[in-house]
């Protein structure tokens, strides 16, 4: 997007300007990015070094370089290699990808729907995926192979999102307010359908489904990284490229159209990319709640409402949150595993309440 209309706009509506309402002085911007990056790196290192299996740090480095084909002369057992390279590294990458996808989708959808409560679940990805997985488990086709569950989740999420979008668009033009309402209604319907499936399932299936609904990165294989990773990265790029039009869309569809935004195309792109990022994440990790909702709110206070900064920051915050939560999931209850969704909720709710409280005091307007 060219700066022209936006600059004019800032003059007219100063509250939309990126710096207008920052609760922190602008100098804090670089510090914010530095702190976030440091946090991300620290969590990556913690995720590589901590776990139920004790591997010494030099040996971890040895394994990592060994995989890159560089022999540092550090001895490590094949089991240590397996723990680091087969379990920890793909799991850490998956956590970052899933978190980044959820965070950026949340930011984009909150902007698109002009609603601070919007999250990736609203467009039906999560409930469509959950319904498809619950159905697959109860019907018994999950025993066909490792791929049934992720594919069912991915397709279920995407199909439902496009059904909701198609429904909202039936009068010729997609009304985002309509899509919000349709999303809520369809989510309620599928919630009932999932409960219905749960009521029929036996103990084993019930726990399978509930475990999946709570999300887990325990089964993150390299294959999942290879397949879900590119999808999430593509979605990230598409969403970041839509940041400019999204800024204008916050004014309203008509205003944005007058400013030269192709509203329908932008809406469809954002909805598709958010569905792709979330759907690929849900397919491998199950439903990881709260991240899409709180990651944008966490960073909005620091970087302001400009989507060009908000969306990358949300992706970063999402990655940090999921990395942190998964670290807890792997280690707190070892040798057993904690459901990831429980931890994201435990971390997410207090953070969210704190942010609400803080923004009520410091921000009079906007979300």
């Amino acid at each position: 997007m060219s700066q022209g209309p936006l600059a004019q706009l800032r003059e007219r509506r100063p509250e939309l300007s990126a710096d207008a309402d920052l609760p922190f002085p602008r100098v804090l911007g670089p510090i914010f990015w530095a702190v976030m990056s440091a946090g991300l790196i620290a969590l990556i290192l913690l995720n590589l070094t901590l776990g139920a299996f004790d591997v010494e740090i030099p040996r971890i480095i040895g394994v990592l370089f060994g995989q890159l084909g560089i022999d540092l002369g550090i001895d490590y057992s094949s089991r240590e290699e397996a723990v680091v390279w087969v379990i920890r590294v793909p799991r850490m990458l998956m956590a970052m990808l899933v978190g980044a996808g959820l965070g950026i989708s949340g930011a984009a959808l909150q902007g698109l729907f002009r609603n601070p409560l919007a999250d990736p679940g609203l467009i039906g990805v999560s409930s469509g995926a959950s319904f498809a997985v619950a159905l697959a488990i109860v019907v018994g086709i999950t025993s066909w192979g490792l791929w049934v569950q992720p594919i069912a989740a991915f397709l279920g999420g995407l199909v439902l999102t496009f059904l909701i979008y198609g429904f909202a668009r039936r009068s010729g033009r997609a009304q985002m307010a309509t899509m919000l309402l349709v999303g809520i209604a369809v989510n309620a319907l599928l919630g009932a359908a999932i409960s219905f499936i749960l009521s029929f399932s036996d103990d084993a299936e019930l726990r399978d489904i509930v475990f999946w609904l709570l999300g887990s990165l325990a089964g993150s294989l390299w294959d999942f990284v290879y397949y879900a990773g590119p999808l999430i990265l593509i979605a990230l790029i598409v969403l970041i490229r839509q940041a400019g039009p999204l800024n204008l869309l916050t004014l309203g569809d008509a205003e944005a159209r007058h400013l030269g935004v192709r509203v329908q195309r932008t809406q469809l792109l954002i909805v598709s990319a958010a569905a792709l990022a979330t759907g690929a994440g849900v397919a491998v990790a199950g439903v990881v709640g709260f991240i899409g909702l709180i990651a944008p709110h966490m960073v909005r206070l620091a970087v302001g409402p400009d989507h060009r900064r908000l969306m990358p920051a949300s992706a970063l915050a999402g990655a940090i949150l999921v990395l942190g939560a998964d670290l807890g999931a792997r280690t707190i209850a070892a040798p057993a595993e904690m459901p990831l969704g429980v931890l994201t909720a435990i971390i997410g709710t207090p953070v969210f309440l704190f942010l609400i409280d803080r923004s009520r005091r410091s921000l009079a307007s906007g979300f």
Partner: protein
Amino acid sequence: MGCSFRRSSVLVVIGLLIAWLSAASACSSDDQSQPQAQPQAQAQGVQEQRHQQEEVTVAVQQEQPQQARASDAAAEQMQQQDQTEQQAAASEQAQEPPSQQQAQQQAQQEVTESVAEGTRLITLFGDLTEIVYALGAEAYLVARDTSSIYPPEAEALPNLGFAGGLNAEAILELEPTLVLGTPMAGPPGVLEQLEQAGVEVLIFEDVNTLEAPQIKIRRIGGVLGIPMRAEALALDVEKRLEAVMADAANDKPLSVLHVYTRRGGLQLVSGEGNRAQAMIEAAGGVDAATAAGIVGWVPLTPEALVAADPDVYLVMDRGLDVVGGVEGLLQIPGMAETRAGRGPYIISMPDLYLLGFGPRLPEAIADLTGYLRSVQAEIAGELQDETQAE
């Protein structure tokens, strides 16, 4: 506008269809319940506790020269004296007929075969753990899942939690060479990770017939390298099975309904093809749900329950606990309105013992047979009372 309205109604119809299909498929899916068992090896019998004293007398009067029956009654008496865990465990051991011990001694004499040195074993369901103990290979066990609570010594092993939510790293930390699991074990990615790390993972498909223990025993014996010991145990289980089933034959079989009770209002009834059907028929009963044409698990509906009108309810200890014992069970709509509910005749057995289909299957059948006989005797007694009153 008209066109899009039609499209939206098509969507609604598709939605309903999906919901309907899911219901239909859930009804027909032949899954089995493999609920967690509880540590107490309760042999709590028919009816409420205040009736237990009479009942045991009934059982003892009826007694034929049958090992299982006598030990069954003994188990119940011990249960009444003391309900502590240790006592319960002792009573479980008392239930094992000497033939199994003989078989184990026999097996131990075959010194020619043994489990490979360095084998480190993890079992991810209660029945598999039981079999490893019964094969005398427990020294090689390094961990278990949360459902593996028999024999009581197994509880001393590290607990990996629910078998469907495993932590790959924690498993590798124990350096296992072999992991035995059921289809419930997962998430699937974790099993894959274990295999990539060089751990052999064996999944035992569920078998819902009385051959299940022998199949599992032979397969575990095979992978552990002790096929002869396993064969001896399998044959022993088979022999004991034949004996208890010959004894269980009943010319006036009671109709028994297995209800899988759980918190939250919705109860399931077990029908054809489930383990409960095999159990009930082996113990000389008639599976009320199978007789009513029910296949797999279906939600309990009060009217269908009253129409089926079973003589006895068969439930699992933990399931009975969560609905609030016998009183809670009878408050479930329809439950009090059958012959079983009016008695009330309720047989409750430990989950793993009743539906685990491990090496204790013959004893479980013998117990169930005994409980069914007690109920039969009590019903006959009541009829007599009524005639006398008239």
